[in-house]
């Protein structure tokens, strides 16, 4: 088997000298959709942030497309083909939807074909191009965050809890859009507390518990695993 698109080995990271995640091994192959599930505080965000260089890792390696990401500052990571969408979204509230999207393709000018893809996935964004991002509803902001990320034409899209702050209907809708993107061949790594949605979308999954990978396997198997069902599916 050739080298996966993303290969994380032995990754540890944390805050103020105390590791929150320990010895994480994780891979994502091109075309795959992989989910990381776990309860609040399990270390999902810490793991994603340290993979992207937003938080210095204390040990381990992160290889993406043959490049060692730990040597790169975060803004270089974002230009290497990975795009990270944090749960807080970090949009530019005082700038228009169009400007937010355009910045997604920085340092290049926005590609019209890619804009088309974003509009097709999120028609609402096209309706609101001239509106400031800060005036959008929660669901629309989430669409814009993903849309902005897509403008970079990522080979790997990393999403941290894309359903944060969304009503159940909107969360369903968001995952609908993601499965459309998946059909388009996008590689996705998504961390999620809404375990059923994430397992339904993904090919494979990792269960993160107290900063360690507790379990991994195909999503269909995880969905039937008694431990997982008890802990995360409430069955």
């Amino acid at each position, binding site marked *: 088997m050739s080298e996966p698109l993303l290969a994380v080995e032995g990754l540890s990271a944390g805050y103020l000298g105390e590791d929150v995640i320990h010895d994480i091994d994780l891979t994502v192959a091109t075309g795959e959709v992989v989910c990381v599930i776990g309860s609040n505080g399990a270390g999902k965000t810490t793991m994603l942030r340290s993979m992207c260089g*937003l938080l210095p890792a204390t040990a381990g390696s992160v290889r993406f497309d043959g490049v060692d990401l730990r040597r790169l*500052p*975060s*803004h*270089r990571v*974002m*230009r290497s083909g990975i*795009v*990270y*969408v*944090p749960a807080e*979204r*970090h*949009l*530019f*509230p*005082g*700038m228009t939807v169009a*400007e937010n999207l*355009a*910045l*997604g393709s*920085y*340092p*290049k*000018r926005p590609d019209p074909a890619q804009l088309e893809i974003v509009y097709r996935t999120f028609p609402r964004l096209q309706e609101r191009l001239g509106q400031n991002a800060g005036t959008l509803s929660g669901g629309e902001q989430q669409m814009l965050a993903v849309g*902005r*990320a897509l403008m*970079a034409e990522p080979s790997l899209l990393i999403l941290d809890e894309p359903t944060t702050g969304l009503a159940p209907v909107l969360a369903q809708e968001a995952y609908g859009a993601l499965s459309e993107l998946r059909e388009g061949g996008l590689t996705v790594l998504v961390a999620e507390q809404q375990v059923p949605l994430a397992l339904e979308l993904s090919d494979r999954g990792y269960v993160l518990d107290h900063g360690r990978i507790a379990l991994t396997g195909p999503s269909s198997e995880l969905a039937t695993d008694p431990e997982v069902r008890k802990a995360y599916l409430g069955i």
Partner: protein
Amino acid sequence: MVAVLIDGLVLGLQFGMLGVGLTLVYGLGGVVNLAHGQMAVVAAMVAARLMDRGTATALAVAAGILSVVALGVVIDRTLMQPVYRERSEHRVLLGLLLMLGVGFIIDGVLEWRYPIEALSLRITGGPVEVFGVAIRRGSIVASAVIGVVGLALILFFRYTTFGRATRSVIEDEEGARLCGINPGAVRTVIFGLSGGLAGIVAMTQAMTSPVVSTAGVGLTIFALIVAVVGGLGSTSGAFLAGIILGLVNTLSAFYIGTFVSSIILLLAAASTILLRPEGLLRRA
């Protein structure tokens, strides 16, 4: 009356441009550049020294402006780096105090080496009649220069990739990083740009009255007031505040008196902070 208004407008444009430079640097990195006015004076002094030695005016002016662009870049790359590593209030305080020190250094050097140097770019020729009002040539050129530079700035921030990237860092630094923008590089470029804007203001001031080597502190205070009234971090706010305060300052100085007019300016700054803190504290 109309002549006073026009003087006020020219002063206002100059204030506005100073405020824009200050507000940009604050918006990007939380640094209140208390040496902003001194940087403007450095540009003027470089140009004046070169002209004393016989350099052509245009060349001397360009060299003066470029020298403070370079000064801004150097300050950002060296002194400001530890500041950017700090967070929130500590960052603001450290940046402010360090730039206060830089202001002393610049003023100290100027006072020591060039205490009586002054830059004058007086534009020769009598006043020009515009719609029946006699306006000094210097005022016309000065406002034209600032108008063109201001327009260029607006286009830059609205339509260029780098201009948008700059605004995005002011809006949300983390978000900018997620888009692949290097906030550190943006800050360095804009610190240089801010210095250049200050230099341009000094040059336009020299068109109507000499810029002396001790003018720095006064310019810094004006820039600070304008930036505060406009809302720290907001460029359009700073420009608008500059124009309003320039008019207010000139009119009240003409009709009431200089000291009262400076108290009015200061009151404007203080009351903006007190009455509209939500607008001002947006990025604090």
